């Protein structure tokens, strides 16, 4: 029956230097991609909506570092972090945000539909909770074909109030499918705090309703997320069925865009408190303290990533716009 694993509070000591560096690099890539995207939006250079991932980097990095390329993920409206961490390229991502024909969706999808089938990224999704059953289907397909890949579905605390989540969780459980459910609990469903949208303190409690084990992790600690994910992925891959991870995390920016609060729905103190446990600061302090990396080595990751992003933005800006004559492209196959 359902149980709660006890790894939540354990300090995650034994991970390799390679994993630490991997987690750090994935997080830096997300952080810089998102902060630059936010600046471009505020400068009025990007059309549409932008749901930024800054603050939650440890979750995407921790989970994705436990996956193989052929493992599949479904994402959310706040999907850039998952895409970057799964290895989707900066060029096609920025080009998509710019609505260019070189974008990940040929300029047809925008921020909320970035995908890369070659990287197992089955798409961000504009509908809350809708990616959950799709991941169940991806896991079904893997087992059907005799492959041992797994599917991970990311969703927020708010998404666990929608039917698709509950139906998908039960379906994965009863069919015994290799799905890892990752709740990124950032404390808010848009502007509504968790206490205003459910009576539970821990979303992970919901897993028990489906006979699914769960674990709660510090979502600002990439190493802790990685360890929990590695365990859940291994479980799924070896046929032990689905599991849920609840990562307690926080988004630094607004629900949509960087700032632009109509009214304060959270306090400056609360934001500052979470920022004091910044996931990248945490892993850098840890890496330097235990000799995994030197400060110059870490700085080099930031510098290289900045260069790569500057090049990708220039590429996006220089890319052609879609031709309205091709508007009907890909409505149907064949």
């Amino acid at each position: 029956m359902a149980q709660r694993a006890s790894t939540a509070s354990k300090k995650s000591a034994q991970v390799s230097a390679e994993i630490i560096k991997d987690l750090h690099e994935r997080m830096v890539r997300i952080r810089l991609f998102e902060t630059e995207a936010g600046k471009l939006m505020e400068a009025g250079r990007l059309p549409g909506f932008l749901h930024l991932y800054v603050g939650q980097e440890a979750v995407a990095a921790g989970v994705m570092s436990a996956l193989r390329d052929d493992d599949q993920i479904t994402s959310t409206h706040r999907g850039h972090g998952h895409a970057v961490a799964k290895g989707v390229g900066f060029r096609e991502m920025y080009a998509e945000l710019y609505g260019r024909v070189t974008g990940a969706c040929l300029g047809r999808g925008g921020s909320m539909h970035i995908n890369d089938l070659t990287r197992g990224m089955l798409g961000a999704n504009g509908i809350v909770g809708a990616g959950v059953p799709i991941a169940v289907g991806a896991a079904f397909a893997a087992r059907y074909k005799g492959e041992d890949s797994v599917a991970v579905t990311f969703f927020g605390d708010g998404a666990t109030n929608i039917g698709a989540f509950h139906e998908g969780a039960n379906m994965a459980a009863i069919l015994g499918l290799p799905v890892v459910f990752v709740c990124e609990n950032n404390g808010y469903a848009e502007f509504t705090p968790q206490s205003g949208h459910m009576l539970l303190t821990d979303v992970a409690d919901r897993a028990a309703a489906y006979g699914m084990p769960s674990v709660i992790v510090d979502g600002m600690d990439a190493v802790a997320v990685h360890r929990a994910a590695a365990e859940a992925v291994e479980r799924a891959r070896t046929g032990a069925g689905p599991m849920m991870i609840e990562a307690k995390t926080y988004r630094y920016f607004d629900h949509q865009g960087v700032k632009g609060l109509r009214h304060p729905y959270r306090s400056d103190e609360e934001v500052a408190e979470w920022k004091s446990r910044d996931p990248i600061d945490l892993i850098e302090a840890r890496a330097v303290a235990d000799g995994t990396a030197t400060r110059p080595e870490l700085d080099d990751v930031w510098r290289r990533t900045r260069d790569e992003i500057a090049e990708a933005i220039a590429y996006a800006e220089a890319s052609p716009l879609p031709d309205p004559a091709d508007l009907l492209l890909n409505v149907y196959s064949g």
Partner: protein
Amino acid sequence: MTTTTEAPAVATRKLTYVKAFNEGLAQAMREDDNVFVAGEDVAGYGGVFRMFDNLLDEFGPRRMIDTPISEAALVGLGVGAAARGLRPVVDLMFMDFIGVCLDQIVNQAAKMKYMFGGALSVPLTITTASGAGLGAAAQHSQSLEAWLAHVPGLKVVMPCDAYTAKGLTVSAIRDDNPVVVMLNKVLLGSTGEVPEEIYGIPLGRAHTARQGSDVTVIALGRMVGEALAAADELSAEGVEIEVIDPRTVQPLDTETMFASVRRTHRVLVVHEAVTFGGLGAEIAAQIQDAVFDYLDAPVLRIGAPFSPVPFSPVLEKAYVPDRARIAQGCRRLLERS
């Protein structure tokens, strides 16, 4: 005038509509191991309408999946599996149940290829039983083709007999797009000549079920049979109607309709769904746009009144269009000109 069937040059035998569907599905499963079936009571029980009889015996639990009553997760399972290269057939039992999984159909399956810049296809088939006439009342009797035909990315087929039940199902499964197969509950036990081997019927191509020169009757699903019956009645009065079965309502073969209207100059569109906002409105609009100068009378629509499907048989009979109303409509069209 003659009733035209597509008289395939192969041996046929009489099968019921539901058996023809079942045979087409089984043959499509034999043809491609990527085809599987998931739904409520499709495996062990064989489907509440016996649509999936004996398939568990032949294909086993790997390919015949009983699921919980969770239509959103069921269609989502189909979407995710299709995105990963399988060809799922998911069954929604009653068409009225699409309300609980419309997001997965409309926002996920239909749009995924477009939104993703063509990165994938979603070869998903959704089977479902539609239509009134069995006293199943308002939540188990609807014909909601207009909802789905309105959504770019979806295809919608409406088999009118055993032959099309098999052929359109095979084509739906072979198609690389999400296709909704609207079986008609009243027709499930009706019989027709069906070839033994597997065959597809092209999606998006209408069939002229009867040739005639006086009125074009465009009939959807079960109304094809009603229109053919009306044709016999009218023929005795010296009126010859042409009956067009679109077979696929999305994509819609309007060229066949336009060509017919150029010859008959009068059109009646009939469907089980409510008239307001139904396919008849779309077809009428397209006809006036393309062949207005050929019309001798306004396009006449016959559909259900704007009400939920009623329960009591006397009310339900009054609700659903039938051969008498079609014949009456044709007479009215002829009186006008």
